[in-house]
């Protein structure tokens, strides 16, 4: 909970640091704010306190996911130091919006009342609508903003109607009271409540870009400035999945029979649509958007084993995914700046231009594809084995087939890196940029070698 306060104050501090003539001040304030937020967050470990009249319940689950989001944002803010693409908005304002969005994310992982779920989603999303459109004079950025805004508000309305229907049946917004009500109904929940639950699945499915609610994702990811896309595909996805998982783990564990079939179909559809469409993309940015959809599909598999598998497999997957995605986007930003394109062809000859970048790219994409010994492999392993143990064999088979498709398009980038290119000028890298790439690549491998560090947390 203290992390929430620190993040809100740091957001304001970052905003006002924009008045200073020192351009670096905003970055320093933001990095400091995130470091402090992470520290006070970790200090609450193993306390499990309820705040604000039981609106927020900060248990280890909330603390773990808050920590992941704060650290991911720290890496993204560090990338800003050497970021060259024009955003047309002062950095201080971007940082402030990112902080406010992250505050919404913290509410999303720690809510125990549906009111906080709704407010968290809105606080997470509203700054993102602005960030998506932060390249004011670029039409693609405008388009991303309006699409994200209209569809986001549309999905929130569905989520809200779902909450209202559940309130109508149970007379409460508190997730544990709702769970108790469902338990008393002896497996016969009222139809209104089930309808409300499905509307919640729709609204939250939109936020994590699960098919068939994924249509906005590629357009918004491609149109937004790359650094905002990085934030959306890591921090926002973490918050969305964690909120989704928390809702079903706390409120609806008694009626798994009602929602597991729907979620499994959703998972199968999401990963298939994401992976198959990613194969046909020539833009790496758009490919990473589809790969993000596919990863949301894999993560939905965790829901079918919600009662038998600990939440740490979701945590581990999200960390592995966030680390590799930040790494991949960091490379993409450099390529975008030096070649002016985000196509796969822009990666050609990279091994000649910078062996370091070529190596980093390889690690990032291998981890995304899920090949040992990287974290991506073990993340998939824990999720899939949990599903098999819970008896969902067909879902696991679809997931494994999908992983094979994914290897194809990730390796297209890697082969481009090691093929002959026309350009052979060496690539210049900033120090901080280089440091972020090294940290994420090392983490992607180290977490793969020592998965128990994370798996034993929750």
């Amino acid at each position, binding site marked *: 909970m203290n992390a929430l306060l620190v993040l809100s104050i740091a957001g304001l501090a970052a905003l006002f640091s924009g008045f200073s003539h020192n351009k670096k001040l905003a970055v320093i304030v933001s990095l400091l704010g995130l470091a402090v937020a992470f520290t006070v967050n970790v200090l609450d470990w193993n306390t499990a306190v309820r705040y604000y009249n039981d609106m927020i319940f900060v248990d280890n689950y909330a603390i773990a996911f808050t920590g992941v989001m704060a650290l991911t944002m720290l890496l993204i803010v560090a990338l800003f130091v050497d970021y060259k693409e024009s955003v047309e908005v002062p950095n201080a304002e971007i940082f402030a919006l990112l902080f406010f969005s992250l505050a919404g994310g913290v509410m999303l992982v720690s809510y125990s009342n549906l009111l906080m779920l709704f407010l968290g989603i809105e606080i997470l999303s509203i700054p993102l609508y602005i960030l998506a459109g932060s390249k004011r004079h670029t039409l693609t950025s405008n388009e991303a903003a309006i699409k994200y805004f209209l569809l986001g508000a*549309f999905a929130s309305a569905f989520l*809200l109607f779902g909450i*209202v229907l559940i309130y109508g049946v149970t007379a409460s917004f508190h997730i544990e009271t709702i769970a108790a009500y469902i338990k008393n109904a002896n497996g016969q929940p009222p139809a209104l409540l089930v309808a409300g639950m499905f509307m919640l699945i729709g609204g939250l499915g939109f936020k994590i870009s699960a098919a068939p609610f994924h249509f906005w994702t590629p357009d918004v990811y491609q149109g937004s400035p790359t650094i905002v896309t990085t934030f959306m595909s890591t921090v926002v996805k973490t918050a969305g999945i964690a909120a989704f998982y928390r809702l079903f783990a706390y409120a609806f564990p008694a009626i798994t029979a009602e929602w597991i079939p729907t979620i499994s179909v959703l998972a199968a559809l999401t990963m298939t649509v994401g992976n198959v469409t990613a194969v046909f*993309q020539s833009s790496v940015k758009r490919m990473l958007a589809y790969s993000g959809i596919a990863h949301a599909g894999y993560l939905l598999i965790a829901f079918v084993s919600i009662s038998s598998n600990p939440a740490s497999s979701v945590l581990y997957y999200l960390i592995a995914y966030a680390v590799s995605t930040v790494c991949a986007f960091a490379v993409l930003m450099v390529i975008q700046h030096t070649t002016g394109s985000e196509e796969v062809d822009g990666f050609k000859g990279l091994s000649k231009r910078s062996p370091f970048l070529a190596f980093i790219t390889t690690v990032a994409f291998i981890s995304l594809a899920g090949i040992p010994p990287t974290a991506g492999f073990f993340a998939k392993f824990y999720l899939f084995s949990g599903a098999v143990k819970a008896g969902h064999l067909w879902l696991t088979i679809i997931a494994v087939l999908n992983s094979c498709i994914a290897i194809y398009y990730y390796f297209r980038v890697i082969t481009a890196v090691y093929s002959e290119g026309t350009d052979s000028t060496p690539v210049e890298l900033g120090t901080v940029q280089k440091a972020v790439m090294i940290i994420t690549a090392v983490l992607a491998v180290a977490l793969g070698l020592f998965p128990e560090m994370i798996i034993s947390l929750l």
Partner: protein
Amino acid sequence: MENISAQITQVAPLEHYILLSAVLFSLGVLGVLLRRNVIIMFMSIELMLNACNLLLAAFSAFHSSAAGQIFVFFIMIVAAAEVAVGLAIIVMIYRNIHSIDINELSKLKW
């Protein structure tokens, strides 16, 4: 509160409120899906939110619990924040393309 609950359900049973809200909500959904003017789509979303508000107020009176009515205030605040950001985005687009037709924006296709 008990009194109000009895009065409200005497005038019209709860089902009527649910039906009215569902109809309003569906009208909003149809508006978003069928209309192509951004401002109309935007107003349709507001209609969906207000359908939720109405239903919350009805349930709140029916259950004699104030929580639902407090929720309505939060929805109003969020709707206002969304309007502020949404209209800013629409103005930004209008300055660039001198139109607010959603079909004019189709630069991003694969």
